């Protein structure tokens, strides 16, 4: 059971009553931990907690569950699925040595893949707390997680995008307009994914059909997803709707997930149903999960565990179901959890690192709300840092403005910027399609063609000329 962790600094002895408390005190400052009352009470206490945490053997995490095994099915999943063979090469390390090991040349991509199933979310969270941003980037960049459905995501030097064509009333033409805009800017290889404004089975089915028609008509090597509740998607599948990916928001504790209205059995059942549809052409990863620091606290389901550790535990849920995509929606939740650009950037890098270390195909919704102390420059920074870290995918939305969810995320332009600066391609199947459709003349260098691609010109030609035509003339 829980033991007391002590650390002597000079003449002063510091005490942390449990591993859970030690982890929370060692966490870089953020407003959510302050709101929960688990944050370090001084900068010195945080630094000391980090020193004490560095001395904790990784084995301790297998003996002391932060949330009791009996009370929480996510803890049971973590403990029961732990692979001691995979753990062997790192089993003798402390958290501090684990950081050294991860950064060493010994820990190459193959070695990191080998130990993956021996790492628990708590171990990943613990080591991340004593890593600087550059450490999080360097190690994540060595982790390879590749998934596939109708294209391949997560290959080295690739960055995919989710095309997010949301509309406040789910207007079919409004959504189609944003899809077209995105495709013509080379976006959408991770998924074309809609957050429905009206969340029910009938609406989800309409949106699935819309995207399925677009994907099949234009033969796009990508997949679609309506981000509705898992039980809605299951009903859609029963009714024969064209479901590519099953979506669910997930958290790192059983109580969070039950507040979201599902448990692990629900996800297993949904995954099985989606696999039976056999709609993937190059792979069978059929799940799409979203996460984000603060969700457990917001559901009052955090058990006194800091928000970053709760978040890492969500990745244990994710990896159980072999997802195509996992997306940490880092700045959406608001300033009571992540206050400003600095906290959002740190959290984005932590989430991506922990996800990749645990073997999850991690992408990031690089985003902020208007009541957070953040702006487009913070997003430029996080986008660039995550892309350097090998982030699997980011969002793509017209002009960064989600008019349905009322927040700002990365735009189609943003993705092209970072692909050029860092020399990153889209998924190979999608890149070939972009060139075939004459959307790009040189996809490897993110070079768009200047003329309207012929396959889309006819769709536009038959449309009435609207009042907005005048707007084009500004030059």
């Amino acid at each position: 059971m829980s033991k007391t962790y002590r650390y002597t600094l000079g003449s002063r002895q510091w005490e942390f009553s449990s591993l859970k408390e030690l982890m929370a005190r060692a966490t870089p400052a953020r407003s959510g931990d302050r709101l929960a009352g688990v944050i370090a009470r001084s900068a010195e206490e945080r630094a000391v907690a980090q020193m004490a945490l560095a001395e904790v053997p990784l084995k301790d995490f297998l003996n002391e569950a932060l949330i009791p095994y009996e009370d929480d099915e996510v803890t049971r999943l973590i403990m029961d699925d732990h692979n001691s063979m995979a753990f062997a090469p790192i089993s003798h390390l402390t958290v501090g040595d684990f950081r050294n090991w991860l950064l060493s040349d010994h820990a190459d991509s193959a070695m990191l893949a080998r130990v993956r199933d021996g790492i628990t979310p708590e171990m990943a969270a613990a080591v991340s707390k004593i890593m600087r941003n550059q450490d999080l980037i360097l190690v994540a960049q060595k982790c390879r997680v590749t998934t596939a459905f109708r294209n391949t995501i997560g290959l080295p030097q690739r960055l995919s995008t989710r095309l997010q064509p949301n509309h406040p009333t789910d207007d079919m033409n409004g959504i189609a307009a944003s899809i077209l805009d995105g495709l013509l800017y080379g976006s959408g290889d991770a998924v074309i994914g809609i957050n429905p404004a009206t969340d029910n089975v009938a609406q989800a089915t309409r949106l699935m059909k819309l995207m399925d028609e677009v994907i099949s008509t234009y033969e796009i090597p990508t997949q679609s997803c309506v981000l509705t509740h898992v039980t809605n998607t299951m009903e859609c599948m029963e009714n024969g709707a064209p479901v590519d990916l099953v979506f669910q928001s997930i958290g790192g504790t059983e109580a969070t997930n039950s507040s979201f209205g599902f448990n692990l059995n629900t996800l297993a059942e949904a995954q099985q149903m989606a696999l039976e549809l056999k709609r993937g052409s190059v792979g069978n990863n059929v799940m799409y999960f979203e996460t984000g620091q603060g969700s457990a606290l917001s559901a009052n389901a955090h058990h006194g565990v800091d928000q970053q550790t709760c978040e890492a535990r969500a990745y244990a849920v994710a990896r159980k179901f072999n997802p195509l995509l996992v997306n940490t929606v880092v700045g959406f939740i608001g300033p009571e959890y992540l206050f400003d650009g600095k906290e959002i950037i740190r959290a984005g890098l932590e989430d991506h690192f922990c996800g990749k270390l645990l073997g999850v195909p991690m992408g990031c919704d690089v985003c902020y709300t208007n009541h957070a102390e953040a702006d487009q420059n913070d997003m430029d920074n996080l986008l660039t840092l995550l892309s350097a870290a090998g982030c699997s995918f980011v969002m793509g939305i017209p002009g960064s403005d989600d008019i349905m969810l009322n927040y700002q995320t990365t735009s189609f332009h943003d993705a092209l910027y970072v692909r050029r600066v860092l020399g990153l391609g889209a998924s190979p199947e999608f890149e070939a399609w972009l060139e075939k459709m004459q959307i790009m003349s040189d996809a490897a260098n993110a070079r768009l063609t200047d003329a309207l691609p012929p396959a889309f010109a006819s769709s536009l030609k038959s449309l009435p000329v609207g009042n907005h035509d005048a707007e084009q003339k500004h030059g």
Partner: protein
Amino acid sequence: MVNQPDPQNKETSEWQGVIDNPWRRLRQFTDARIGLGRSGVSLPTRELLEFQLAHAQARDAVHTPLDFATLTSALEKLAQEFSILNKERPALVHSQADDRLVYLQRPDLGRRLSEDSRQVLIKKQQTPEKPFDLTIVIADGLSATAIAENALPFIRALAQGMAQENDNISLAPITLVEQGRVAIGDDVGELLNARAVLVMIGERPGLSSPDSLGLYLTWAPQRGLTDDKRNCISNVRKAGLSYTEAVRKLLYLLHEARRLQCSGVAIKDRSDDSVIGNSSGQTSFLITSGGQG
């Protein structure tokens, strides 16, 4: 030797300006920022600056303090026009969040009245012999702009709507809350002995909607209620849900709440049942008019 123009070279030496997107006219279907055009792969200057302006307006909506004095006198004047409105001067109270910085990081404090404010309302409570049917709470929330622009015209529309319905609803004096969240209406409603509370609050501003008013109706308000006990009407603003539509929905919900003696998930908003399903087509221009050309 004749100097042949090199097409490659020409491209770099003679800049053609920003590349426009002919599909910008699809904005007839959406307010999304589509067809922005590009320079290289980057946003043109005009679009960049327009975005910055929209963000500045949204930031100002969050951080500019609401002018409660102006609102108070405007509400007093409005009460003279409509007999249904309570004539008493609106009370100005404060949450436990001292300032905006605390408010943004501690939503729990924004949900509770400060002790001074509780005393103000407890004194008022002794006035009525029988409970009010409804009390209206106006809170700044996350957008002072939303309240400044919409609170007065909405209450005018509400007073007109109530007068037409002729329901004999008794309204408590209006309460104005500084640094308030939705749940603070529970404190106010309980202290004022009201059967129901309507919280009008500035919603989290979107980039294209810094002025969105939210309406929350709660039956039998008391401290500690959860959000599933409330009904919400969102996006009330000039370019969003109109005041008359919002009033229609609210009066429907209020009627149901009084009939069923409850609010929240137990009441379904069926005021638009007839609209669902035929508001827009089943397919889009991307399919109907073309495909692989």
